[in-house]
């Protein structure tokens, strides 16, 4: 496994760009009880992560694990119930959970979102030029039309969109091209932090590689930090420096990419890795099958959230919820990870 990927991640030595402590997003449900508090969905529950400036941070998990909600909470686009998010890019520092008014507006320039579906994310009534220029106009970043145009052209060129493309409407573009337009729009305000939520999930593999390479180039060139939310571990393995795995709103494992893929510690991470279909037809039947499905977040199991599907679950797992234990920069939330590693 590469040393390059681990060497990149020296988050502990300098102030991280984003640091969360006990971050939780709970949604109350409508209750049919007269007394007592209404039930809540713990979409994100007590998450501590640190995203280093200029790094590519991967967040993986199945649908329903809370990864999208966590991404949105970092942008203050989901209601933060508990915990804190500190943002510090060297120029300004904010506490995101209480951010309001002019400061929030300023944060919006610094943190941007790229959506999953490039077909739904672009207005069909606007030209590509207008789509990319809109954030500049809304945020008042440019004074004149000429200035706006110059900035749009500069960003478009970075995302490999030609001048001819700028005059057209989104319907004339393929999925990969549309995703490049979405990326250009996110980059135009010169952000420091981008949440890319399943940004290649809707693309064909041949196009996916192209968009991933573009994101990676941009990250290096502009020194951006990415939170890359994905359900696809093989994609995450290729682009991210650090990977966090979520299950039912909790962080179950968090480590530099090289360490996570070489020596996954949590049984859930191992099962996820093993379930990726191998390209070798002779690997049939070798995958480790997980029984059952992710439980409903309205009614999570007691103890370790994964105990209902874990092949190694013991009595302790059904009662005590494990904390995230960090050792050599590799965090895992499992009572028995060490014993499982020795096996």
């Amino acid at each position: 496994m590469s040393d390059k990927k681990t060497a990149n991640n020296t988050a502990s030595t300098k102030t991280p760009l984003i640091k969360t402590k006990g971050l939780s997003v709970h949604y109350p449900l409508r209750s049919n009880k007269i007394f007592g508090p209404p039930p809540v969905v713990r979409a994100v529950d007590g998450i501590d992560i640190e995203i280093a400036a200029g790094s590519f941070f991967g967040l993986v998990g199945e649908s329903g694990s809370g990864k999208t909600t966590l991404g949105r909470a970092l942008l203050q686009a989901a209601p933060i119930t508990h915990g804190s998010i500190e943002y510090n890019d060297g120029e300004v520092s904010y506490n995101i959970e209480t951010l309001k008014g002019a400061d929030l507006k300023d944060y919006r320039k610094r943190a941007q979102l790229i959506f999953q579906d490039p077909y739904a994310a672009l207005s069909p009534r606007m030209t590509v030029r207008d789509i990319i220029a809109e954030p500049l106009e809304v945020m008042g970043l440019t004074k004149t039309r000429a200035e706006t145009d110059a900035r749009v052209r500069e960003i478009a060129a970075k995302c490999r969109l030609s001048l001819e493309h700028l005059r057209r409407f989104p319907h004339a573009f393929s999925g990969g091209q549309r995703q490049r337009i979405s990326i250009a729009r996110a980059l135009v305000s010169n952000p420091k932090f981008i949440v890319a939520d399943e940004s290649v999930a809707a693309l064909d593999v041949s196009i996916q590689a192209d968009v991933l390479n573009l994101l990676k180039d941009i990250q290096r060139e502009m020194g951006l930090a990415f939170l890359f939310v994905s359900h696809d571990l093989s994609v995450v393995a290729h682009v991210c420096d650090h990977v966090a795995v979520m299950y039912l709103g909790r962080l179950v494992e968090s480590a530099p990419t090289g360490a996570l893929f070489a020596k996954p510690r949590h049984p859930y991470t191992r099962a996820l890795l093993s379930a990726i279909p191998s390209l070798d037809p002779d690997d049939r039947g070798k995958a480790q099958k997980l029984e059952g499905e992710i439980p409903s977040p309205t009614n999570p199991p007691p103890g370790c959230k994964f105990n209902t599907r874990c092949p190694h679950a013991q009595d302790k797992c059904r009662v005590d919820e494990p904390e995230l234990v960090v050792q050599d920069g590799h965090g895992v939330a499992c009572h028995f990870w060490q014993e499982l590693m020795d096996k």
Partner: protein
Amino acid sequence: MAKLIEVENLTLQFKTDEGLITAVDDVSFSIAPGEILGLVGESGSGKSVTAKSLMRLNPSNAIYSEDTKINLHLDGQEPIDIMQIKSAKDMKVARGGAISMIFQEPMASFAPAITIGDQMVEQLLIHTDYNAAKAKKYSIEMLDRVGISDADKRFKQYAFELSGGMRQRAMIAMALSTKPKLLIADEPTTALDVTIQLQVIDLMKDLVKEFGMGILFITHDLGVIAQTADNVAVMYLGKLIEKGSVRDVLRNPSHPYTQGLIDALPQLDNLDVPLKAIAGDIPSPLERPPGCVFHTRCPKNLVTACQATVPEFTTLKKDHEAACHLLNEEVTS
């Protein structure tokens, strides 16, 4: 081996306001009983349209070419040419009788206001001689067989009450309850998480063994193909460009497109290899390139041959063929 279905020269165009769009161009393949044929391609390659043609489920603006033949061979019967079936009543054999289909989005393929059970019973009443009581009993058995717990409770529920994986299992139970000879599975695992995908793939493999049917398995995921199919056919812009056994095609991909697809996949065993994209975008079906359909994106494109003439299939090995001029010695020399 005797074939179950033989598709010959399937060509299909859609009549639209912008002109005729060729969706499938001269595609031939066959499936034997108990065989899983994987059909791979990117979006817009015509794989779903090809599958729907087997049941003639394409919209009314679809025009099939004259020489299209889809022969269905059933035990002890004369072959049935699905293209020649005239009445809707006779189509029953292709639509739910001998051929069943599993769709990609299970939420969209169940009627939302009818219980799962009623939908299963309805098709059994149409395609079998079961009475209502027997159809119900058998449907519950099938739900149980595909690993749905509390099958008799689920039988009375609606699609929205089931999770994604559960819905896909119910879809499989429904498709198999009429005991089809051929199952068409159109991206059956694409909407599912990897852990659930693995469960569904295992289930389908078990059922093939048990029922001995043939499966046309459509997917864009080469990994899924590697883990399920016996043979694979690769499509690009409505053309078949390579076909063969899953080992031959994945280990020795011979068409530049198949090679490109495999190279573009992120591999877990070597994280340092940069991802290689296939250059350019899939052309619009309105601007189908002349000659080899892939030449606009092909790194090995030859001006003389590739841009002018459509390549024929070259046999590389028994049952492994690819349609590329570069494999033809006369063209390259």
